[in-house]
């Protein structure tokens, strides 16, 4: 048995190694003020023309600047443009730019960069940005720090052009096809407060402070986005102080953080610009494969009365969410319409009364039969990507069966659902939207022109369309708000969507190392918002 003598030896060596490893950990140093942010999703690219995830956008916001930004009340404030004015027609915009701004590579930033960026995106119809520059007819550089933009008609959301300004000296050499294809942009050059120095896919993205930032060097020396593959581990990393903030925290873990009440961790249940809706196929077209019952507004309204939304939120979303009503979430306080008594809250008796009156009476096995003699039985499509929506669907099925409507829940992946929507092959589905700061884009989704494009319920109402055209051209803010209120009212009234919940943004951050967290807007989150105030203003606690 001599030969086994070295087995204990091996074990001793292993043990020694592990002890040594734990002991040696002291030999490390932090490079000054490092700020680590944890999240669950990989950054797909650093190229602004192909990105789509919130995480990739956050890196873009830190790398590049826009012409304008927003304060905590969502008023437009200067960024790269220090001032602007518009002529009486509302079509000629003059921007006066900040002087002395430098790109990360030391080159000076000028009006030519702005002109180049807008034209590059407009002429090549690039990415999501195209919508913002499509209406720019002519861009003229008056001098290094002044330029004018002429639009084909007055545009109410100007100057909120959500386009990052790119350096002309770099992007002019990039073939537009590459820009939308496999251009990696691994060393992005912008004007922002931080620049990417290391981008390891699936691991982390490291950014360091821009010493020459035109608003002043940030107090944070490094911002590092770390990817976790497991939420529990990410939450633990926050508790152990490895991370400063975690975002997109699932309800269960958020609840645990709230209950733990760690004095150094703040669990922030913030409003977000997103909502979840139940959409009906209201496409009045021979090509539609949806159930014709759903073209009847009475049916849709009855379904809304039959749904207990608070119950859905309490059970499926662990109480994190708010019962939703109109297309514009209350985060955008200025534009959100409060329906008051017009809101159709849970009332199953009312639902049954409406259905009875409209000729949908109970037949055999508990289901109602429509005037056309067909059973009220519909398919509800759910995304396999969302366990929350799946929970909701089961509850909705029960709530609707109580009023005599049969629901068959079918779980499919997002890609398949998208295909089914574009084929008009659905009765209803649950999905959500992420709303821009200006309400135009979400309101536009429901216009007739967007059928087979952004629209997913194929709603069509000439009155709504006309109001949309009008609000886009109304430069007076209050006048425009009345139009937008009216649009929200009309769309709500027609019930092509049943707005289920305004979804919160659940974040948790440490309060013991840095101070100066900014929520934007006031009821919104501290990070992953449209502005980067927190990153600019966080200061270490000495």
């Amino acid at each position, binding site marked *: *048995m001599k*030969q*086994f003598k070295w*087995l204990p030896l*091996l074990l001793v060596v292993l043990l020694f*190694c*592990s002890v*040594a*490893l*734990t002991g*040696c*950990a*002291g*030999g*490390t*140093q932090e*490079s000054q003020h*490092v700020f*680590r942010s944890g999240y669950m999703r*990989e950054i*797909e*690219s650093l*190229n602004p023309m*192909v990105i*789509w995830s919130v995480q990739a956008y956050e890196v873009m916001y830190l790398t590049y600047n826009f012409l304008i930004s927003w304060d905590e009340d969502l008023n437009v404030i200067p960024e790269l443009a220090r001032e602007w004015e518009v002529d009486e027609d509302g079509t000629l915009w003059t921007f006066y730019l900040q002087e002395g701004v430098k790109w990360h590579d030391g080159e000076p930033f000028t009006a030519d960069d702005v002109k180049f960026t807008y034209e590059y995106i407009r002429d090549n*119809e690039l*990415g*999501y940005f195209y919508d913002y520059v499509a209406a720019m007819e002519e861009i003229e550089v008056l001098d290094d720090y002044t330029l004018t933009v002429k639009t084909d008609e007055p545009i109410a959301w100007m100057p909120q052009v959500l386009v990052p300004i790119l350096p002309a000296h770099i992007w002019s050499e990039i073939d537009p096809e590459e820009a*939308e*294809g*496999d*251009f*990696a942009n691994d060393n992005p050059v912008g004007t922002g407060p931080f620049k990417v120095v290391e981008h*390891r*896919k*699936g*691991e*982390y993205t*490291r950014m360091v402070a821009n010493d020459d930032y035109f608003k002043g060097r940030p107090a944070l020396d*490094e911002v*590092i986005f*770390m*990817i*976790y*593959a*497991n939420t*529990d*581990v990410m939450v*633990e*990393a926050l508790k*152990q102080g*490895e991370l400063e903030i975690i975002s997109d925290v699932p309800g269960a873990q958020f609840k645990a953080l709230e209950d733990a009440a760690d004095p150094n961790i703040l669990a922030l249940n913030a409003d977000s610009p997103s909502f979840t809706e139940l959409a009906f196929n209201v496409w009045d077209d021979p090509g539609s494969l949806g159930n014709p019952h759903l073209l009847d507004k009475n049916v849709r309204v009855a379904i809304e009365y039959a749904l207990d939304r608070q119950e859905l939120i309490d059970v499926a979303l662990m109480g994190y969410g708010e019962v939703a009503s109109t297309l514009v979430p209350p985060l955008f306080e200025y534009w959100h319409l409060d329906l008051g008594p017009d809101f159709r809250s849970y009332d199953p008796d009312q639902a049954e009364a409406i259905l009875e009156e409209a000729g949908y009476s109970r037949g055999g096995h508990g289901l109602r039969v429509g005037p056309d003699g067909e059973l009220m039985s519909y398919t509800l499509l759910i995304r396999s*990507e969302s366990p929350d929506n799946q929970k909701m669907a089961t509850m909705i099925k029960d709530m609707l069966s109580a009023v005599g409507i049969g629901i068959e829940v079918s779980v*499919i*992946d997002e*890609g*398949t659902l*998208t*295909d089914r929507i574009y084929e008009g092959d659905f009765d209803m589905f649950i999905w959500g939207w992420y709303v821009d700061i200006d309400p135009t884009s979400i309101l536009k989704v429901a216009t007739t022109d967007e059928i087979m*494009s952004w629209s997913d319920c194929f709603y069509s109402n000439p009155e709504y369309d006309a109001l949309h055209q009008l609000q886009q051209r109304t430069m007076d803010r209050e006048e425009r708000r009345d139009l937008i209120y009216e649009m929200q009212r009309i769309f709500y009234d027609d019930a092509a969507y049943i707005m289920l919940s305004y979804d919160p943004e659940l974040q948790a951050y440490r309060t013991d190392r840095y101070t100066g967290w900014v929520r934007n807007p006031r009821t919104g989150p501290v990070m992953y918002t449209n502005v980067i105030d927190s990153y600019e203003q966080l200061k270490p606690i000495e």
Partner: protein
Amino acid sequence: MNMRNYLVTKFIQALITVFIVIGMNFFLFRIMPGDPIRVLIRNPKISADSLARVREQFGLNEGRLVQFWIYLRDLFTGDFGSSFNYRQPVLDIIMERVPATVLLVGTATVLSIIIGVLLGVILAWKRGTRLDVIGLSVSLILYSMPTFWVAIIMVMIFAVYWQIFPLGGMGLPGVFYTSYWAELASKGRYLFLPTITFALILVGEYVLIMRSSLLEVMREDYMLTARAKGVSNRNLLRRHALPNAMLPVVTLIAINLGFIVGGAIQIETVFSWPGLGRLMYTALTNRDYPVLQGLFLFVTIAVVGANFCADILYRYLDPRVKS
């Protein structure tokens, strides 16, 4: 059959296997529902021109058979296609992740083979004793524990409760080290927990196989003969029993390589280890077919290659294969 013919035959068999898998992979992804263009372009507002441009760029404008032919042709030139999600060449993306996985899986496999074989031998030698009973039950328990669960438990005990090892990742970015040794020690700390977890998962099987294989060999007549000749216990084990008992273990190691990838997905997910397993999981959730296809091919080649090596090794370990 001489060595050369044997090698050539085995090599051709391996190539055919790889080719069949390539074909299956390709068509498997093509019959899945959903147009991949929706993954590529999440913007329904895109113009018809851009759409056609992207389709062409990713070779989606051709018929399936033509696409397959182009895919094969590109494979021979080392072009695995371009990722839908990262918009980068698949081969680069995979190669970036290989070192992390090789480090983790390699260390864990070597560790589990050494410990597994040793324990297996000890248990077989001491069969029927209390040590054997305990060792056998522990091995069975380890063998049947779900990978994901073990990993979570390990994190809970060592990284949350005792906090002697880090929670995950390969290191903490933004930290610099005072010395080379401090850096090495830190890297080792990050590697330790996932490796030990993985080794624990793998070791049970090796113990069980080694033990039963050795027991079987020890029952053979030639063992009795050797003992009768007065061969010492040590030589009996080393010269007569072990070489024969190792055969099933070699097969197991080669076959296991495929399953190890499955384990790597789970271990890497729990420990946020940036390797191939994580890449596969992310690619799956993003419907990044080119990356998945590349990964499947990569794993296929690894498994077929390992089996090819095992076949050759067999000829040295087992003279019977030669005839």
